[in-house]
């Protein structure tokens, strides 16, 4: 009894690390230091500011690793005033046996009350960031001595298996719904393959449905594997055995899906036109020719549209200047002057002056000659 009490006390001190840094103190607590692979370990972290002459904030993270999987269960952060306190609880599942190190990243962020207040006072168009001086605070890794599982173990935890098959008789190729559920506490029992993909039957399956709730006691999971089986003749679904290990009781056990015999009645093919699978074609399929002709028509239409635009452009080129007709239609000098004034073109200044001199002065000009001169200018 005395020896047992001593063991418990020594284990408690081993699992608790209390350290004092420059501005803060921190405590790591783990509920077990020698877990099995995939056995739940609860890690508790407490960070307390000890130097109250500055405003301090913490940014703590567990570094990702292949050696373990983790999940945060609880967090309490008090950043008010100069008494920062952080309390985190993590659920960790070691994934490798032997000595593993759980490593951490801690960032110490020093700021001021003004900066904290300022960062909250910005509006939508004037966002003000919190100004901090960040310093990484090195934390020693937490070491776990992980025990290996008995050989052939697939699941870790305390699970029970239930299977459900609604009917044992069906027509040929009629799907037979079949469902297997694994439920219990432990590392989530998600398996890549439960049954072989193809046996003497066809199996249709989808991704397993996983429902998990993590707590300080571990993870409660229900994993359901929905399937459907199909065949054209009777067959037997073989028995499946899954080896599991309960780390709390330190005992191995087996979950079994019992063998199932399924009766398939043959389909009546006498009334069918095609009595054999994949019969040969009765006539040639010329639908590709129709598609090809359709493409050719569309291509030709597009090509001709492009050409027609070009033709239209050419005809536009041939159209004479709009002034030509107007000038030719002028019956007297006054109307010709009007047309030239409306044209707003410096090239006709000389013509305007001549017409002006004739209309309002003593000069004499020939209307036809004038029109000819202007038409030559236009051309």
């Amino acid at each position, binding site marked *: 009894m005395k020896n047992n009490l001593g063991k418990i006390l020594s284990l408690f001190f081993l699992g608790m690390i209390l350290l004092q840094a420059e501005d803060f103190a921190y405590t790591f607590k783990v509920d077990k230091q020698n877990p099995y692979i995939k056995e739940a370990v609860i890690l508790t972290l407490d960070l307390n500011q000890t130097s109250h002459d500055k405003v301090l904030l913490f940014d703590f993270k567990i570094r990702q690793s292949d050696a373990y999987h983790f999940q945060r269960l609880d967090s309490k952060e008090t950043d008010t005033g100069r008494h920062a306190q952080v309390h985190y609880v993590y659920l960790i599942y070691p994934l490798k046996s032997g000595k593993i190190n759980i490593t951490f990243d801690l960032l110490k962020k020093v700021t001021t009350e003004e900066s904290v207040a300022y960062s909250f006072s910005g509006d939508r168009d004037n966002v003000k960031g919190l100004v901090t001086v960040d310093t990484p605070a090195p934390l020693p890794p937490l070491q776990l001595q992980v025990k290996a599982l008995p050989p052939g173990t697939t699941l870790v935890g305390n699970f029970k298996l239930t299977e459900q098959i609604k009917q044992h008789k069906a027509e040929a190729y009629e799907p037979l719904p079949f469902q297997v559920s694994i439920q219990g506490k432990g590392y989530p029992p998600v398996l890549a393959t439960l049954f072989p993909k193809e046996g003497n039957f066809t199996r249709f399956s989808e991704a397993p449905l996983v429902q998990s709730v993590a707590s300080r006691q571990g993870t409660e999971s229900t994993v359901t594997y929905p399937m459907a089986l199909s065949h054209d003749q009777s067959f037997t679904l073989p028995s499946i055995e899954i080896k599991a290990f309960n780390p709390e009781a330190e005992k191995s056990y087996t979950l079994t899906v019992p063998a199932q015999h399924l009766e398939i009645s043959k389909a009546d093919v006498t009334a069918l036109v095609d009595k054999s699978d994949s019969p040969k074609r009765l006539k040639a399929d010329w639908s590709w020719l129709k598609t090809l002709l359709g493409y050719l028509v569309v291509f030709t239409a597009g090509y001709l549209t492009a050409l027609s635009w070009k033709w239209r452009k050419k005809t536009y080129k041939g159209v004479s200047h709009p002034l030509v007709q*107007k000038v030719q239609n002028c019956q007297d000098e*006054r109307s010709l*002057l009007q*047309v030239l*004034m*409306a*044209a*707003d073109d410096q090239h006709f200044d000389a013509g*305007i002056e001549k017409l*002006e001199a004739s209309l309002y002065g003593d000069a004499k000009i020939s209307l036809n000659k004038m029109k000819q001169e202007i038409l030559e200018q236009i051309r």
Partner: protein
Amino acid sequence: MNEKITLLKTELSKAVIGQKAMIEGLLIGLLSDGHILVEGVPGLAKTTTINALSSAIGLDSKRIQFTPDLLPSDIIGAQIYNPQDHSFSIKKGPLFTNLLLADEINRAPAKVQSALLEVMQERQVTIADETFKLDRPFLVMATQNPIEQEGVYALPEAQLDRFMMKLVVHHNSEEEELEIMRKAATKSFAEVEAVLNIEELSVLQEELAQVHIDKELEHYIVQLISATRDTDKFGLESLSSCIMFGASPRASIDLYKAAKAKAFLRGNSFVTPADIGYVIHNVLRHRIVLSYEARAKGMKTDEVISTIVETLPIP
């Protein structure tokens, strides 16, 4: 033609090759106290022309590049605090000049455009509680770039109306461009000398006032402007669905003044219908608002003006 005008044109041609329409438009604006809006791509000698004109008449000229962050005080001026004697002094803005080039006026927001356009109309500036009259002549040549429409503040019609003329400046001919290229390469552009002073300019303006315009032509001007408002009355039914708003009475005034100035620049002491024809497109093109239907058809105000000129009988 008046000798002084000939001299002035000759002097300007030393610095500006081609662009006769722009030079003539500027001279019309200068002689008739109007302001000019120029639409053209960059590099068409707009600044050069303004500088050459100011040098040739011995006037002061300034250039403001309009930008979206420009403030009214940047152009009209502001009150500056002097901490040494605790007093405020007036710092006059670049508006206080004779010839002002407002480059890319549609780049500045409406409040800056309004500040400038108000000064153009009133010819006086109020800074704090002090009002300053602008020296005469005061001519604003504002430019707009027709190829960029992103991030611009288009001038509203009411403000466009304050410009006497809108000139559309085109590229020079190949021969002119060759001459520009050679002169620029050899730096052989001659120095523009002052051939006119402000007093002589005033005399020219007085002479311009004496140019005769017949009553029939006065009626013709009014009819041309009325035709933009009531097309059906003048047998212009084809235009009735094309015009949303016709030209304002300011257009009649400016067309009258511009036609007289054109006649004067041509060396005549009287106005002919051709003088009106020479300037009507420049005076009206920014004052007629086309309907959505007309714009959808790709119609331009110049086409509307041409149709009106062609239809209304000249005296």
